[in-house]
């Protein structure tokens, strides 16, 4: 690890990622992909379904390796799972056999913290996401939004410097999603982590991020990058009626639409 404090939090340099499909064919998910996330920056990645958005995140975690190119985290090449990274999954990734507090405490315990301070910390995080009274319940007893808040607490308790989110709120209903956006921005503004937020929801991307990456339909590469100059703190539930917001989302949508159409055509061709 280099003691370099100026390098970007995440860099993907000319990254390609191929893998074998179950019938033995080689498939390219990412091609010549370049991305750079500054420290404390909130980046959203949008693109058509199935274009390889999630692959970018797996490369940063070290769960997947690039076929070509280089992935750097805090200036050093990725080698295995980096403890400074937190990840929020699209589907439920809570441990169903553990109670809420036991789910939140897993990170610190895995990382070797003694049980007593670990549980104290977990209780503190449950208070922050307003779930203290449900500490001893099991995940299946909670609503979708509550489970997501447990996931956030489970991730943030490790104090990640880099936060990766893979369509984390896509399974929630629209109202709950807006509440979760507020929650996320609140937690993020306290932690100042660098975030990569993958989504197919353009409005979500613009409402949350400093920078939006638009990807081409697969194999994915960066089509364009937009800076979102809407001042913070943002109120997600109202921002969508903002003039600047509407202008930006129209511009980006013009760009994204072609890719969505192409992606849909390709899917139809594949099915037929």
């Amino acid at each position, binding site marked *: 690890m280099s003691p370099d404090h100026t390098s970007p939090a995440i860099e993907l340099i000319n990254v390609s990622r191929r893998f074998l499909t179950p019938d033995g064919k080689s498939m390219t998910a990412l091609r010549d992909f370049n991305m750079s996330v500054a420290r404390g920056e909130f980046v959203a990645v949008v693109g058509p379904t199935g274009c390889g958005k999630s692959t970018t995140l797996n490369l940063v975690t070290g769960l997947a390796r690039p076929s070509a190119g280089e992935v750097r985290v805090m200036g050093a090449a990725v080698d295995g799972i980096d403890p400074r990274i937190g990840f929020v999954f699209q*589907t439920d*990734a809570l441990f169903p056999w553990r109670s809420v507090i036991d789910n939140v405490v897993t990170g610190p315990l895995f990382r070797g913290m003694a049980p007593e301070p670990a549980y104290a910390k977990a209780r503190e995080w449950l208070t922050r996401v307003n779930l203290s009274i449900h500490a001893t319940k099991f995940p299946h007893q909670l609503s979708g939004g509550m489970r997501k808040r447990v996931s956030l607490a489970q991730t943030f308790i490790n104090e990640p410097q880099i936060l990766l989110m893979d369509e984390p709120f896509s399974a929630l209903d629209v109202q709950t999603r807006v509440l979760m956006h507020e929650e996320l921005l609140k937690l993020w503004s306290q932690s100042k982590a660098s975030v990569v937020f993958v989504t197919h929801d353009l409005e979500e991307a613009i409402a949350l991020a400093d920078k939006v990456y638009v990807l081409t339909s697969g194999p994915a590469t960066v089509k364009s990058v937009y800076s979102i100059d809407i001042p913070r703190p943002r109120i997600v539930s109202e921002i969508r009626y903002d003039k600047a917001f509407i202008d930006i989302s129209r511009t980006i949508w013009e760009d994204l639409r072609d890719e969505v159409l192409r992606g849909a055509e390709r899917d139809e061709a594949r099915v037929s």
Partner: protein
Amino acid sequence: MMNTTTISAVPVFQPGTSDAEIEAAAAQAAQKRKFAVYFWRYFILIVFLGGWELAVRFKLIDVFFYSSPWFIILRLKEWVVEGTAEGSLWFHLWVTMEESLLGFFSGSIAGIIAGIALGRNKMLADVFSIYIKVINSIPRVVLAPIFIMIFGLGLTSKVALSFVMVFFVVFSNAFQGVVEADRNLLANAQILGAKGWQLTRSVVIPSAMSWIFASLHVSFGFAIVGAIVGEFVGARYGIGLLINVAKGSFDAAGMYAAIVIIMVVALAAEYAMTRVENRLAKWRPAPLQELQ
């Protein structure tokens, strides 16, 4: 002019039942259903045993081959009160239980360990899967004479037979459970910081647990089968020996009595297993009940 404002957006309440009434009705229906289930259970039992007894009394079937519920009860009473011709019933029962329990625990522990090891290691799994298939294709009971030849008439040969009966069932379930562990949960645990053994202990084993438990239910029965078949082929003590002796003296009541004892033991074990499983699986959602 027509007043259109009252047409929509007015909630229409049916003059209906309150929640309390629905709940009371549901509780009553559940009670009734439970009663009906028990009624039919006992009814079938009584018809079966009564039919058997009457068929013997009216000489429709030969008591020499089929004995009768009453003779079986008498034989059980005799065994319990006076002991069998081969000694105390409880001693024989204890011997069979000891063999079954030893076979069950050693077989399931070995099965779980092997299942998890092969489930976690693709290379090991690919190498050993063919051998496991081959060995698994052997009908287990044909091993009984071999084990008795190798280990003698004592405890060891029965435990060995019980072991092989249990091992493969538990192994294949544990293996399947590990292979089907949720990818997301594994990835999540790894990113949260789990390494090596932590990952196995905190994700792999709990997610394989429901598979493993399903196999344990079946395999305790198999453990008893292993012990009894072993005793059958050659032993000095045990319920299997009692059956063998009864067979030798054409004592139908004795054979059926031994079967009843085994049934009671197996049911008790099944009940205990369900209790343990329910305790361990309290995190699982209970299904909602349909209102009828």
